[in-house]
Each structure stands twice: as structure tokens, then as C-alpha cells.
């Protein structure tokens, strides 16, 4: 168990995937009619009426709570996977139910039901209601319908896409990787898609609904050369429908897998110790996620646990450092139309011109700090309590050039490829595991290096960010962040930056 410690961000690689296998074709349990974007479709999908919602909310509020919400979810997942040149296994999962949350001050009562019937919902509501302990009569508020933005429009839904349509793309990924390099001895690939129907209602009368698609697609390439084996996983993820599937995306993933695996044979371990670290544009956004992002999540600050708890409004970085957490980027894995407590998504500026300007809030923390919610209250599914989570976290462009940054380093490492990271919120120590990078010697990239951990301290690293380039890249990696046992999809990005000093894992002479 980890406490106050965000375990990772991890590429949902295929290694983890005896379970992450395969197939697809599922319509839902009932023949599925694509839902239109209106409340009635979603109410009827979950077989509930407005009157029932009001009745359940009233039961949730009957012990004198301040607030309650209902989160209905119907999620369909399909995975198809390839081993030994064939798409030969598949996995599907259906999750269905309603989570009922009751708040009294900053206290939470939570229960869920996997059956959506009036009796089951009332039972769960009364269980959750026990967080409060008085009596009160709740009168339902007039229903307001949430106007949903469209940050992830779907052209063709995964539910209308059969496994037959998916197989050729997975096969192509395999074939492209094999044909690109004679050293390739194994390929494993997986294509996974998710379609989620969400219906939300709370004691303030807000009624919201959403259709959330997601796709992950990637492959592990294994090469052998002179008795040595190396592997590399390349993959992409978007909130998109099956229009995602193109030959171009397959070719991009294949190219990355082959090039990177091949380069690993040239790479070794760096020398251990403190040095300058240049983080290349793109996935180096993991630095923001681990070093800063988690410590800005307001639950940790409300509880005073974060090393940034007393730094609001204070200067934490150079003037050219601007960091945002944005849920509105179209089609990104971290995009969200509204968060899982009915708050609108937005672009939240967390560091503005070097000054800490906002934490990332859920409903409880926004109330505690008396600020507007930032739309970061997210949950893994209807079985879980929403908590502040990042969406797409990135740094805006700065004044420097990538070449000038690398040229400024006498002795350091350049890194842009990672598998996972973690942070200790209280002490501020954060890490990320480097899958691939280069040494920098006298201003030039030299020997490739791989498989080492970098550790630093959040506030120190932020202050030590001495150069930021103008080449921002927001990536489409398969990042999943873990917190309190809940996974959440994230995106990230950063321009090339230099940190004056981090501790690099490696060998000693």
C-alpha cells in the first residue's frame, strides 16, 4: 500500500498483459442503439426516470448531508491481441452500475450498486447517507441540464466496429515491425477500445450525460543480436472512435518500435550521480506530472500533506515557466467534457510566469479553498470516490532553442523516453524511469544510455528549470496514472527544458 505517494503513471504495456488481451465485437448486452445527445436517451439507457433520480437523491440526503450525487456508468471494453504473427486472443468486459456519494462537510459516504433498480439504488443511497447523522427533509431542486461541449467527437463508434475490421491493422503492425529489421524475433500487439456511457445527477439538480470513447494501440518489439535481447513498447492512445484506425498510425507505431529497440543495443548505463538533465520535448511532460502535478492536487494540500501546501501565490520557478492542466484538448487521452462530479472541464493555469497560480480541485477542495472547481474531480469508475486528478498537463513554450540548450551542457544526460514515474507528496521526491536517452558531453549528444532511474525534489527541480525551448510537443502516449488505487488516463507535454541538477541512477567506477 502506498500512502501520499502517487504510484506512477505507467505505460499500460503488453508486459502487464496476460490480462490485457483481446477481442472485440461486442455490442452491449442489449442490442445497442447509438444514443442521441439528450437526457432522455441516457435516462432510458439506464432505465431510470427523473422522478426516481429525485427519490434516490432525497434518500441520500435524508440524514442531513450537504450534498449528494449519482454517477451511472455503462462501460464496454474490448481488447484484441496478437502473438506469433496472429490475432489469436481477445478479451471483453462489461461494467455497469451506479455510484452514490454523500458529502457532509469534507466527509464522504460512498456506496454503489451493480443493479440499477429503484430498490437497489435506495439501499445504496441509505448506506452512503450514514456519513451524516441527523435528520432532515430534502426537497429536490429543479433539474438543470448540463450543456455538453464536444472535446471528443466520434465519427464511427467502437461499438459499430467489429473485430474483423480491427484485425488487419493489428496484423499490419506486426508485419511492419518484422519486415523492418532482421533482428526482430517476437512481436506482441494489442488494440483496445472502450465506450462509456455516463449519466450524472446531483442534489443541486444538475443532470449531465456523456459518451466517452478511448482507444489504445501498441506493440512490443523484441530483437536479438549476438545473444543479447532487447525489448521496447510503442503505443498510442486517443479519445476517438474507430476513425483512429489508419495505415498511417500503424506505420508510425511500427517505426518507433523498430527504431527504438534497435538503438537499445548501442546503449549502456550512465555514470551515477548529480548532473544537468535536458528533457526532450514530448513525453518528458512526465516531469511535470510527477514533480509538480501531483503535489498540486488539492486533496494533498487541503490535508496539508503536500510540500507545495503553503506556496500558493508564491514564486516557484523562473518567469518563463508556465504550466497548465487542460481537459479541453480535442481527442486527447486526458480530455474530458465534464469531470466525474459534474463540473465543466477547463484549461487550468497552475504555474503562471513562475508563480503558483492554482491547485487542481475537486468539489471538496474547491469548497475548502473557496474557489471555483477546476474540473479535476475524476474517478476510475462508478465503484470509486472522485478525487483531484490531472488531465493533460503540459508546459507552454519558453524563450530558448533546443540546440542552444543542449550546447549549454558540459556534462549531463538528454532524455525523452520513459516507462513510469512516482512521487512522494510530502518530501517532494519524484522519480522517472528512463527507457532511452543520450549522454551530453561538451554540448553534444554522444553515447546512448538506457534503463536508469532519475530522482529529484519537486520544488527544487521547478526552481532549477533554467532553460525552456519553443518546441512544445503534447504526446499521445498510453499514460495511466495511479492514485489511491484508482487509475486515470492522462496526457502530457513539454518543450525541451534544462534542469540544472538531478540525481541520475547508474554505475560507479
Amino acid at each position: 500500500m502506498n500512502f501520499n505517494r502517487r504510484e506512477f503513471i505507467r505505460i499500460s504495456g503488453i508486459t502487464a498483459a496476460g490480462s490485457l488481451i483481446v477481442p472485440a465485437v461486442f455490442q452491449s448486452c442489449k442490442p445497442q442503439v447509438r444514443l442521441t445527445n439528450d437526457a432522455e436517451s441516457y435516462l432510458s439507457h439506464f432505465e431510470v426516470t427523473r422522478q426516481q433520480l429525485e427519490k434516490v437523491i432525497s434518500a441520500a440526503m435524508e440524514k442531513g448531508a450537504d450534498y449528494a450525487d449519482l454517477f451511472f456508468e455503462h462501460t464496454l471494453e474490448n481488447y484484441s491481441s496478437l502473438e506469433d504473427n496472429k490475432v489469436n486472443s481477445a478479451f471483453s468486459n462489461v461494467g455497469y452500475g451506479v455510484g452514490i456519494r454523500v458529502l457532509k462537510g469534507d466527509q464522504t459516504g460512498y456506496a454503489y450498486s451493480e443493479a440499477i433498480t429503484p430498490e437497489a439504488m435506495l439501499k445504496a443511497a441509505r448506506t452512503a447517507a450514514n456519513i451524516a447523522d441527523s435528520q432532515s427533509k430534502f426537497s429536490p431542486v429543479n433539474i438543470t441540464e448540463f450543456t455538453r461541449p464536444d472535446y471528443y467527437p466520434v465519427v464511427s463508434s467502437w461499438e459499430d466496429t467489429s473485430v474483423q475490421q480491427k484485425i488487419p491493422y493489428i496484423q499490419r503492425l506486426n508485419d511492419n515491425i518484422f519486415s523492418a529489421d532482421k533482428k526482430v524475433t517476437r512481436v506482441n500487439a494489442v488494440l483496445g477500445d472502450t465506450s462509456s456511457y455516463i449519466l450524472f445527477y446531483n442534489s443541486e439538480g444538475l443532470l449531465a450525460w456523456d459518451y466517452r470513447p478511448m482507444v489504445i494501440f501498441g506493440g512490443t518489439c523484441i530483437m536479438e543480436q549476438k545473444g543479447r535481447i532487447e525489448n521496447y513498447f510503442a503505443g498510442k492512445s486517443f479519445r476517438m472512435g474507430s476513425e483512429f484506425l489508419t495505415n498511417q498510425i500503424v506505420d508510425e507505431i511500427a517505426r518507433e518500435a523498430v527504431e527504438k529497440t534497435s538503438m537499445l543495443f548501442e546503449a549502456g548505463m550512465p555514470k551515477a550521480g548529480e548532473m544537468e538533465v535536458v528533457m526532450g520535448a514530448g513525453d518528458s511532460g512526465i516531469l511535470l506530472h510527477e514533480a509538480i502535478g501531483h503535489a498540486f492536487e488539492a486533496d494533498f494540500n487541503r490535508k496539508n500533506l503536500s510540500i507545495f501546501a503553503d506556496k500558493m501565490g508564491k514564486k516557484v520557478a523562473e518567469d518563463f515557466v508556465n504550466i497548465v492542466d487542460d481537459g479541453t484538448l480535442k481527442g486527447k487521452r486526458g480530455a474530458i467534457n465534464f469531470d466525474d462530479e459534474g463540473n465543466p472541464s477547463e484549461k487550468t493555469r497552475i504555474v503562471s510566469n513562475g508563480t503558483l497560480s492554482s491547485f487542481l480541485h475537486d468539489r471538496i477542495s474547491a469548497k475548502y479553498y473557496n474557489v471555483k472547481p477546476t474540473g479535476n474531480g475524476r474517478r476510475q469508475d462508478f465503484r470509486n470516490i472522485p478525487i483531484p486528478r490531472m488531465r493533460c498537463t503540459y508546459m507552454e513554450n519558453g524563450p530558448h532553442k533546443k540546440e542552444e540548450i543542449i550546447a549549454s551542457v558540459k556534462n549531463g544526460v538528454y532524455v525523452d523516453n520513459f516507462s513510469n514515474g512516482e512521487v512522494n507528496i510530502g518530501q517532494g521526491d519524484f522519480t522517472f524511469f528512463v527507457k532511452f536517452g543520450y549522454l551530453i558531453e561538451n554540448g553534444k549528444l554522444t553515447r546512448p544510455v538506457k534503463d536508469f532511474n532519475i530522482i529529484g525534489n519537486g520544488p527544487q527541480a521547478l526552481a532549477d528549470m533554467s532553460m525552456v525551448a519553443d518546441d512544445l510537443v503534447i504526446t499521445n502516449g498510453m499514460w495511466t496514472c495511479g492514485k489511491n488505487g484508482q487509475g486515470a488516463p492522462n496526457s502530457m507535454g513539454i518543450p525541451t527544458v534544462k534542469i540544472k541538477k538531478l540525481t541520475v541512477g547508474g554505475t560507479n567506477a
Partner: protein
Amino acid sequence: MNTTEKYSLAEMAIDHALRCGADQVSATIYENRSNDIEIRDQKIDSLKESNRSGLSINLYVNKKYSSHSTNRLKKEDLLKFIEEAVKATKFLAEDEFRALPDPELYYKGGGPDLQTFDPKLDTIDAKTKIDLAMNVLNEAYGKDERIISVSSYYSDSISSSVMVASNGFRGDSSNTRLSLTASVSMKGETGRPNDYWNENALFFDRLVRKDIGSKALERTRSKMNPKKLISGKYPVIVENRVSANLLYPIYQALTGSSLYQKQSFLIGKQNQKITSQLLSAVDDPLIPSGPGSRHFDDEGIAAVRRPIIENGILKSYYIDNYYGKKLGMKPNSGSSSNVICSTGNKNLKELIASVKKGVLITGFIGGNFNGSTGDFSYGIEGFYIENGGLVHPVNEMNITGNMNSFWLNLADLGNDFREGDSLRIPSLLFDNIDLSGK
């Protein structure tokens, strides 16, 4: 659902899949109830009650394979779901290795009670649970003016499942689990150190319910104002609470899927030396009240006690049914149960006393390993040891190496494994380990 109802639901699912065209089917019906209580600074922070149930089903249709799960167990939903699943499976490629395990391998029943289920847990009321958490919180709360926050957690779960396979397996199991945890956060000069302590049990009456908050407080106090050391090679002790993390890459490398997919640094190493001769590890599924105890694994394969590492020599891998067929190896279960490691004579204090200048690792932060090569690198925190005593806390350092050579450097083991863990491994002392710091 009682056990009989679960069996009949599983059998109905199997019959329907066979009718829809599957050749072989296995199905599991599971149910789980759990409670989670979090208390912060003497106030309830959250109460959560969970009730979940579901079906998972493996389908073998003309040498084609897929697996599925759903929590919609209404009969008409389930039948439709299975019908669609069988249809979808037909689109996949054939795989000659896909079939249920040989019935010879199955658990046939008749084993002793493994004592993994406590009927009493179901009768414990919410107030008793809240009180348990409140009591351990109070062991720390207000006991030091530098305390920022104290949290405590109680959680329990009651699980039961049945598994049926169309070629002759039937089995059921039930488990209870509880844990009690305290976490303390304090204000230091350089940060807000935090640490925790927790106790786990399978039986309510066996749960340790004292000295949890006080241990969390003591651990946090000892971590105030850490410093980093100069990079170099050091003797390193890894505390029992986290030493299992270092065994994980070995476990991962021993699984059939890693071997087959060449993501294992232990391919072809059976009967060869992979660690110092001090280390032995036995997989023992049959110990009474072990957290990993079981009569059969998730494929129905009968659980057997077997050596994994004997005096440093690799004796067996973790081979499941599918990869066993692909690798031409006999399946012996693809997942670990309880792993019992050898122990030495010293307690942690005595291990520390044996080190002139080194590091005690009490926690890992992030890091990873390369399954194909065995290279690893993890962030660490702990203490600097000089002349057999702890000098000051350390943080912001990395431990780096290769699993193949690292385990040969194992120089001593403690006598202090934790009873409640399914991986019973003591504190470990390694010589000559690469640490990076200043």
C-alpha cells in the same frame, strides 16, 4: 448468492456457450463485499461500502480463444452476452495451443481446510471497525507538535467464487481479509516526511490492533530532514517490509509468458545458480491461513508445494497451461501463492550492527527493470549506517544494477519476515551495490 447458486449460474453459462458452438468453456462466478474506512485527525474522512459480483468466462471455439467478463448477471443479459462472445471468437485466428488444462492437472477435492475464511467478519458492525481505526490513530494523534496530520484506515473484504470447466473441473473458495493502517505526516525543515505502518490478517480475532499508530509516528520522526550521500558502492540492507520489491523482477522473469516472449533474463537458467547460495524460496500454497493459500489456481490446476530457488539454484518456473504447451513444459501454475524465503540468524538491528559504512533502505520510489536484460534502477529512501548504527535519514538516491549479479551479492539474511505477507522474505544484506547520490 450462495455457493450452490453460483455453481448453477456458472453451469448455465457453460451450457449456453457450448450450445452456441464453443468446444470447451470455463467460467468463474465471483462475489466480493468490502468496507473501507478512513479517519483523519479524529474525524471520519470517508466510509465506503462495496458489493460486487460478476462472471468471467473463457471460450475455446475451433481452436480459437477469447475471455470475457461482465457484472450484468441477469439471465437474459448473460445469455446474450455469451452468444455474442462465442460469435466474436470465431473471427480470431486459430491457435493450436489453446485448450483447457489436461484434467489430470486439476484439483480433485478432498484437501484440508486452509483456514482462509473467517465467518465472524460478517458479524462485525461498522462502529467496531471505526473504533479500531480511531484507536490506532490516537496512538499518534497529538503526540508530537510537529505532526501535520494523522490518518488511519480500516479495510476488510469477504470474497467467494466458484469455478467450473467443461472438461471436469469444479471448485470453490472463499477468503476474508482485513487490514489496519496508520499514516503520519510531519513538518520537517526540508519537507513533510510521512510514513505508515500496517497490519494484515485473515481472521478478525488475529488482527494486530495495537502499536500501529505509534510505529507510524516513530518511523516518521526518524525520517526528519534527510540528506543524500555521495555516489558510490555501498553495502546495503533492505528492510523486510520492502525487500519483496527486489524479488519481483525474478518472479516476473520466471513466468511462462515472460520466457516465451523473451522478456526474461532467466531463460534457460533452470538448475543454474541465479542468487547467492544463502537464498532459498519455496512456493507453498497449502500453509494454513496463508494470504496466498489455495487448493487450486485460477485455471483449476492443483496447488503443490515446490521449491523455486534452492541454495541459490533455480529449481522451477511459474508455468501456466497455455505457455506450458507453447514452451513444451509441464504446467505447474502460472502464479505464485505463498513464497517462503530462507532466513538467517540476525534481526534487523544485528544486521545493521554488522555494517561499517552502508545504507539501510526502508522505501522505494519509482524505478523499473528491463525484463529481457535484468537491468534495474529504483529510487530509494532510508538511513546512512556508520559503525553499526544509524546516523541520519537519506533520500533522493537511486539503487542501480543488474538482477543477475545483484543477487549473487546477497551476503546475509535477517530472521524477520512478516507473517501477514504472502511473500515471506526477511531483511536482506547485499555487498558492493551501486548507489547514486551527490
